[in-house]
């Protein structure tokens, strides 16, 4: 009964076809390593362009805010498959959980770079301040990381044929998925709540009492987009069939959620009477347009029906949605703050190197995990049970 343990269909590794990618990977990793050394032995000032006026840079704005959002496919698909019990989405569930798990682990690594005292990352466990959004996020992320580890564990247990642990994890599956969705709902929205405290420092195009809700909805949208994105790439990398009807229906879901986000966004701008700010010819306003366009284009394309039988177009819709999401979060965390406070900030090369290093590590680990663990081929659960 080794079917579940069989390796993936033989893949032609990307780097054997294009060695350039391998070189790029090693270049990024060396730069990130050097930056890590500087960070560790010379402090934040030596590797970042952060200042007292601008204390949060791309390690928070991209690595944490976008990283957590991009990992939202995990809870979105868990809710669809396990709670709403729509089983046909099952083939993309495990890749989504793996992405989420990796994403959250990398977010914690990024935090270790950004925290002034990474050795004290455990402090929120014993030093409480329930009034702090950051405190709530810290707890949720820590607990959700545990949930994700348990949700992904079956892939490892099946591969290793560890039947008892597998049965235990399966037995607690119901409360686990519910807790996972609740924790995600809480901290995905709380990332938006972090910014509620700066009404005088964030540009009115982005500061809104709705920030928690906007962050929650945009996380769901990008979770779906990421699932399409990684299915596409995995299909290419492992030379397997694209789950086309499934991805199409994920695409329709994406269009609806993105549409809801955009309607909420503009209703909110109109309610707060700041639509006029859109007409000022300023750099941040152009970035606002970029953000809206990147999100609106997939909605229009997906609703128009042009995607039917054109996987590439669906893929580009997903990429556009992801870029729109990243632009929104960077606008909240960087552009919108600079526009109001006049603070100067452009990431230093070492900040970018660490960020790219984390992304590259994410890709590499995902690839390795997908190669050696039953991630894409969902195991026949009955088979495992029968063999016990």
């Amino acid at each position, binding site marked *: 009964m080794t079917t579940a343990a069989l390796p993936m269909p033989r893949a032609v590794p990307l780097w054997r076809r294009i060695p350039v990618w391998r070189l790029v990977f090693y270049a990024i990793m060396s730069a990130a390593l050097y930056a890590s050394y500087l960070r*560790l*032995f*010379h*402090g*934040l*000032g*030596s590797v970042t362009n*952060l*200042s*007292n*006026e601008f*204390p*949060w840079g791309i390690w928070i704005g991209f690595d944490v805010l976008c990283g957590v959002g991009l990992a939202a496919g995990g809870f979105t698909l868990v*809710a669809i498959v*396990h*709670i*709403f*019990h*729509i*089983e*046909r989405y099952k083939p993309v569930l495990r890749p989504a959980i793996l992405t989420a798990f990796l994403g959250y682990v990398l977010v914690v690594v990024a935090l270790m770079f*950004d*925290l*002034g*005292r*990474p050795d*004290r*990352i455990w*402090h*929120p466990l014993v*030093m*409480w*301040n329930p*009034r*702090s*959004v*950051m*405190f*709530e996020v*810290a707890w949720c992320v820590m607990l959700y990381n545990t949930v994700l580890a348990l949700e992904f564990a079956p892939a490892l247990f099946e591969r290793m044929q560890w039947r008892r642990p597998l049965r235990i994890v399966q037995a607690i599956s*119901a409360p686990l*998925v*519910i*807790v996972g*969705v*609740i924790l995600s*709902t*809480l901290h995905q*929205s*709380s990332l938006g*709540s*972090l910014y*509620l*405290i*700066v*009404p*005088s*420092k964030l540009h009115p195009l982005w500061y809104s009492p709705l920030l*928690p809700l906007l962050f929650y909805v945009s996380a769901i949208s990008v979770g779906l987009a990421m699932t399409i994105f990684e299915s596409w790439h995995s299909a290419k990398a492992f030379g397997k069939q694209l789950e086309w009807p499934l991805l199409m229906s994920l695409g329709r879901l994406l269009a609806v959620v993105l549409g809801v986000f955009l309607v909420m966004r503009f209703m909110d701008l109109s309610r707060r009477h700041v639509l006029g700010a859109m007409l000022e010819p300023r750099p941040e306003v152009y970035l606002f347009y970029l953000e809206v366009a990147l999100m609106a284009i997939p909605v229009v394309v997906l609703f128009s029906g042009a995607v039917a039988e054109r996987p590439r177009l669906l893929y580009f819709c997903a990429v556009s949605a992801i870029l729109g999401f990243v632009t929104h979060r960077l606008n909240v965390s960087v552009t919108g703050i600079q526009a109001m*406070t006049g603070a100067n900030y452009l990431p230093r090369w070492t900040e970018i190197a660490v960020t790219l290093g984390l992304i590259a590590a994410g890709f590499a680990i995902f690839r390795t995990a997908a190669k050696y663990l039953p991630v894409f081929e969902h195991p026949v659960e009955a088979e495992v049970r029968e063999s016990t």
Partner: protein
Amino acid sequence: MANALLYDSTLCVGCKACETACAERWKLPYNDQVAEEAVLSDHKLTVVTTHGESFGRRMCMHCQDPTCASVCPVGAFQKTALGPVTYDAAKCIGCRYCMFACPFQAPAYEWGSTTPKVSKCDQCYDRQKAGKVTACSEACPTGATTSGDRDAMIAEARKRIAENPAGYYPRIYGLQEAGGTSMLLLSKVPFEQLGMPKNLPNHALPPLTWNVLSLVPDIASVGSVLLGGVYWITHRREAVAKAEGRQDGVRQ
């Protein structure tokens, strides 16, 4: 009893005796070069700024309901009964949310250190506990910086404005800004001309996040029951279908 500092810009001559006294108290280096620096930093916890004819003074405002104390995940900041907002470096994890959130941009960071701390004025909490005034008010030769009971300082500020309406911009900065502060300012010119942040809300900021955060127990409890119910219904449907030997209960 809560204390406050009163800084009257019209009495300030820009001698920077307050800066010197502050550096001495914190055992920070102070020389001509540091004296020239016009921004708060890890080695300068108060700054006298020059704006044409007028002087201003920047430091931690010691809010009545401090934003830093509410955002800090480990509770490193505390609003003391005496008025000062204190910082416990031993708790700090260095997330810098306090710096990001502070409406007055008061906290600074030791960017060059591998074990960095946040630096900010603590309104000489140890001296105040001993019944003494702050080092800066003690050092001020013109009475521009004074300290005492907050209500008494407000009354004093009002009196100065009333007695010399032509000499003062008719407002006390810090009475309402961000819900009120334990650092009050008087000036001849509008306060933004002294480099003070304007467009601050006249209410405390912590409720902005607390209004959402206080919903967490509701979301967690109602959400769990709701999702549990959905889970039960969807899975029950399948179980019943299976028991009856049907396939239609499973959504494929």
